[in-house]
């Protein structure tokens, strides 16, 4: 590292100057404070609101003149943070700083402090705030005027500070706009490091903006049911899949007065999955497994699946294509396509057979009663579920899909005869109101 001597001395003197200056400006503002009627504590204007804490500090300084503590630039933010942390107060702090001194002494430290405080005030994704922060730099002072200045990294601290502002913008994924560029050109001139960084951002960000094949809408829906529908359609991997809301969240007040909240239950099933379930051997159980995590940007939601073990090889039957199923094109072709030697498009790997997945669901509370409700809801469209034993494998924490070899110790078993339960829930379940797609075949059962 290069010797820090002169810079440190400069910094110390800068801090001392600021200490003295804060006393002086507070005194100035203290006199101003007397003009508006400041008997009350309400804020009549932003200027007076800002000056109130300054006024207090001035009084303290008068009493304790001997204490010479180092005043950092973050103190401004911290004082404001006691009141409220919003974009407006953040902008006010920046205004206080810019109006304080025409030469903007200590602006580099102020900008670093502001960058650090941005997440607390909640403005880290706001481009206007970044532009306002860049506005703190004095203009045209740091622009190199001849080739020697251009060669020798003119005003390196300020350039590094500008680069750090852009780097924070980049790390939050905010695209700068033309105002940023104009500001940077005015402050640092062309061919400076911040401008180079701006050019790099403008080159790479558009290239990577649409690189996600499964884009997530920003902002995410706040309603839990909408979020569940979004994530289920995402993981279904099938455009024909239909989502069903089996239960909307509501709270019920029982006779004793206590509130029981019921979670939402949203399920999804595609026609392929329905076919697979219809072909499933009723002697073999199906498993309700979960919860599995799914991350959407920064939120983690959990889903449950209904699956079965893969059929053992002796029970596998060849699926015969019915030629009358589709008249537009043949479903099976028996052509010898004359491939070249070695023209092999498949990898030489064994195909993993993990067993079919029949349906997925998402619910906020994953206990057996809720999932039972889901199963009974599924049963409306898949009557075979009434005859298949369902096992629940609900473990907390991250896990992969269970395998065939795992034992079923400690897992609960749903009662085998399902018929008597079928009439109960559909008749008295008033919450199954929202159904977006095809009418349920079991409408007749409801009366």
């Amino acid at each position, binding site marked *: *590292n*290069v*010797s*820090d001597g002169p*810079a*440190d001395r400069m910094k110390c003197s800068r801090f001392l100057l600021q200490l003295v200056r804060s006393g002086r400006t507070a005194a100035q503002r203290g006199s101003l404070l007397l003009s508006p009627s400041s008997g009350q504590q309400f804020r009549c204007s932003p200027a007076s609101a800002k000056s109130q804490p300054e006024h207090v500090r001035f009084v303290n300084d008068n009493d304790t003149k001997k204490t010479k503590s180092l005043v950092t630039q973050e103190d401004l933010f911290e004082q404001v943070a006691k009141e409220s942390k919003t974009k407006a107060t953040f902008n006010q702090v920046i205004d206080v700083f810019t109006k304080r001194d025409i030469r903007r002494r200590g602006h580099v430290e102020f900008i670093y402090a502001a960058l650090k405080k941005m997440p607390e005030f909640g403005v880290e994704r706001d481009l206007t705030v970044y532009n306002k922060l860049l506005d703190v730099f004095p203009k045209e002072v740091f622009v190199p005027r001849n080739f020697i200045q251009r060669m020798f*990294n003119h005003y*390196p601290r300020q*350039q*590094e500070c500008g*680069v750090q502002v*852009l780097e924070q913008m*980049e790390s939050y994924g905010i695209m700068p706009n033309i105002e940023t*560029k104009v500001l940077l*050109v005015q402050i640092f001139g*062309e*061919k400076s*490091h911040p*401008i*180079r*960084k701006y*050019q*790099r951002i403008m080159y*790479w960000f558009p*290239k*990577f903006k649409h*690189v*996600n*094949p*499964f884009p997530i809408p920003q902002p995410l829906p706040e309603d839990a049911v909408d979020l569940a529908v979004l*994530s289920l359609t*995402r*993981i279904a991997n099938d455009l024909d899949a239909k989502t069903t809301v089996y239960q909307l969240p509501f709270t019920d007040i029982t006779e004793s007065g206590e509130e029981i909240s019921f979670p939402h239950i949203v399920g999804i099933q595609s026609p392929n999955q329905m076919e697979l379930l219809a072909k499933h051997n009723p002697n073999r159980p199906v498993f309700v497994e979960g919860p*599995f*995590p*799914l*991350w*959407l940007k920064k939120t*983690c939601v959990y*889903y449950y*699946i209904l*699956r079965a073990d893969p059929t053992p090889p002796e029970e596998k039957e060849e699926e015969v294509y019915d030629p009358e199923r589709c008249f537009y094109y043949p479903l099976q072709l028996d052509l010898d396509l004359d491939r070249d*030697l*070695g*023209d*092999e498009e*498949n*990898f*030489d*790997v*064994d195909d*993993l057979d993990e067993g079919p*997945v029949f349906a*997925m669901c998402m619910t906020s509370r994953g206990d057996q009663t809720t999932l039972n409700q889901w199963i009974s809801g599924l049963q409306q469209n898949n009557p075979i579920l009434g005859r298949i034993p369902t096992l629940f494998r609900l473990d907390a*924490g*991250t896990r*992969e*899909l269970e395998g065939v*070899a*795992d034992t079923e110790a400690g897992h609960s078993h749903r009662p085998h005869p399902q018929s008597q339960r079928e009439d109960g829930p559909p008749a008295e379940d008033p919450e199954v109101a929202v159904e977006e797609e095809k009418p349920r075949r079991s409408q007749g059962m409801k009366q």
Partner: protein
Amino acid sequence: MSLPTISRVPASGLLRSIRDLRWLLRSIAPLATPRRALTQMGYRRPGQPREDKPPWWRVKFDLSKGLKGMKRHFTLLKEEFFAQFIGPMGKPIIEHMLEQNQVLWEFRGPHSLQEWTISCDREIGGKSEIYLKVGRNNETCLLYGTLCSDPPKDGETRYSGYCTMRAKQPLASFDRKRYHDWSSFNTLHLRIRGDGRPWMINVIAETYYTHQKDDMYSYFLYTRGGPYWQDVKIPFSKFFLAHRGRVQDDQHELWLDKINAIGFTLGDKADGPFQLEIDFIGVCKDYAHTEDFAYEKYKRNPEV
């Protein structure tokens, strides 16, 4: 994505990070069979005292291990010698010329985990965790753990929170470096099952100069999540050059004739558990893909 640091600027007590430590993989964490590699000068965490031991201090002198090692090396040497008579790379030449798909890493059993190394930001003092184990039925591998992006409090590090898995360098007899040769392929094919998190695939190619030691060609791997397997095909022309996590200005395409390793990194600043299941990794030749390189090689001094 920034310049190499303006090193003439003094630190002045401000927080500065010289490198983006997200994709920095230096030390090697022990796997199922702990095996610490002998790195010449491993990464030294800021604040830790320098070790003054001579380099031979770390070598373990053990007779039985030495004998086993000798046996292994000579077996490998013999195999290599006779492989030359079969054809290039030990395969018959017609197969080498015409092959369109090659499975590089197939996770079937615990022995396949020996080829991989995992690391996380625990090396630099962070709080993430990462583990690698065989998936169910010995048929896949599961990379799981927890991500925590609290930076370590050493005054230097600004960003933290990464977890990586990297293939070990293939070694010939007597621990000589061997390279992957993917020059007849142009697409990377993976079969994975993630949990919706965005990962980054890094390919490390062999370089000549020491300045290029941390060069990596990266691209994004977006997982869909869910119970279904996801086939990911990434052409090699899409990989961009990055050095220690910073995308470089001077981009050129990935040269496939000498590849050292491939790696997966997670650093998406979302704290919490993660998991990634991998079935196999292969390369294939996609005749429909004719692009050489996806990024323009633009001017060094562009106009503003």
